[in-house]
């Protein structure tokens, strides 16, 4: 049975009042939604809160899901994206004062991003290095405009196809492709600029 069919069956059971079906839905999708939220918000706490909000909204509007109109995953991602955009608008003022040289929100006592760039050089502990690279890229990712960021996250981190991304973002497929490319290029420029400053 395909994923879409399984999801449709679970939704039907859940709408009929089957709590086990809902538990299964949460189990199947919580990881993916949490990752989208984490990559977009850049904070584990915010990601946790947003993931919960997504599921609460999903639970309340599950009856409105129509199998004919698209895959369940696309529907779930649309809910997630809408909540993330709302969250971004609410917290816009907080981020306006931040800069790339600011410390990461997850680690208040951490060094500024620009000072941590040299740590990208090969070290004996490859795992720690990978983690550091991840933090640097994540930090740069949160500096992208939300339009570019969401397109990049859905394409490069969640392997969604362009058509589904277009459905989620409610823009034409061509616009999706353009945003993804501009997002990638912007990310590269941000990281390159920081790297050059340190060098």
């Amino acid at each position, binding site marked *: 049975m395909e994923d879409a069919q399984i999801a449709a069956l679970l939704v039907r059971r859940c709408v009929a009042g089957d709590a086990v079906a809902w538990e299964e839905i949460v189990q199947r999708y*919580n990881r993916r939604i949490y990752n989208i939220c984490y990559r977009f918000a850049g904070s584990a706490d915010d990601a946790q809160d947003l*993931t919960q909000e997504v599921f609460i909204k999903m639970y309340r509007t599950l009856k409105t899901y129509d199998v004919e109109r698209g895959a369940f995953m696309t529907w779930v991602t649309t809910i997630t994206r809408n909540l993330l955009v709302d969250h971004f608008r609410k917290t816009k003022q907080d981020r306006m004062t931040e800069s790339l040289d600011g410390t990461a929100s997850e680690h208040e006592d951490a060094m500024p991003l620009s000072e941590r760039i040299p740590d990208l050089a090969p070290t004996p502990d490859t795992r720690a290095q*990978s983690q550091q690279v991840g933090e640097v*890229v994540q930090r740069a990712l949160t500096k992208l405009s939300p339009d570019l960021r969401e397109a990049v996250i859905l394409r490069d981190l969640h392997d969604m196809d362009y058509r589904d991304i277009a459905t989620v973002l409610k823009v034409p497929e061509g616009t999706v492709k353009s945003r993804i490319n501009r997002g990638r290029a912007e*990310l590269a420029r941000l990281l390159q600029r920081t790297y050059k400053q340190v060098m």
Partner: protein
Amino acid sequence: MAAESHNDMQCNEFDALLSDAIDKMLTGPKAEAFLAHGKTCAVCGPLLAEAEIGKHWLEQLVEVEPPAMLMHNILAATVGIDTARMRGAATVPVRASWFERMAEWGRMVVSPVANVARQPRFAMSFGMAFFSLSISLSLAGVKLSDVRHADLRPSAIKRTYYETSGRVVKYYENIRFVYEIESRVREFKRATTPAEPAPQKKDNPKNDNTSGQPDEKQQRNYSQGERQVMLAGLSDNPPVVEFANLATLRRIS
């Protein structure tokens, strides 16, 4: 960028094909034209390079692990499921304290009774019983607000019992004392009051009985008031009294 053209490909075309090129989906003459345009165009060439670098950076990001309690929190926030299974999956099971175990045991015992009591007919019976009890207590003068914790100690209950029984005995004794006093006074009066002469018997009674009852019965009726004072008894032939004058009459009266 949109209007520029290099090697039969315009920049907007290049932009549209950029994603496919990075995804390695471009083949044949289209791919050749794309690469040729990228090499010659000062705008599109760097864009292709930066996009590839950016994609490479993004590939460094690995999937993050959600918090252990996330699923439990979601279920608690949506359907209110707070099962031991979910808790067990997220945390190490904690040994319940003796108080929790007692509370759990109490719930197991009480809940079946409570479920039965919640049925409408039983609830109605309990309601009526409570109503009757409250009415009885209020009639007996018992106020629940007066009942204190101190009143429920065994010594306090004992004292209350003796006080109440003492009050009842005193009340009874008082009534008895009053009755005894009254009866003594009555006896004393009876002893000090002289016996009155019995009324004279009529020699020729005139039958003026209009009640329709026999004569003896009628007399008995009259004599029912044993202690009533007979003021006067007139004979059938009263003596003729001659009034000398008004002054004499006044003196007599």
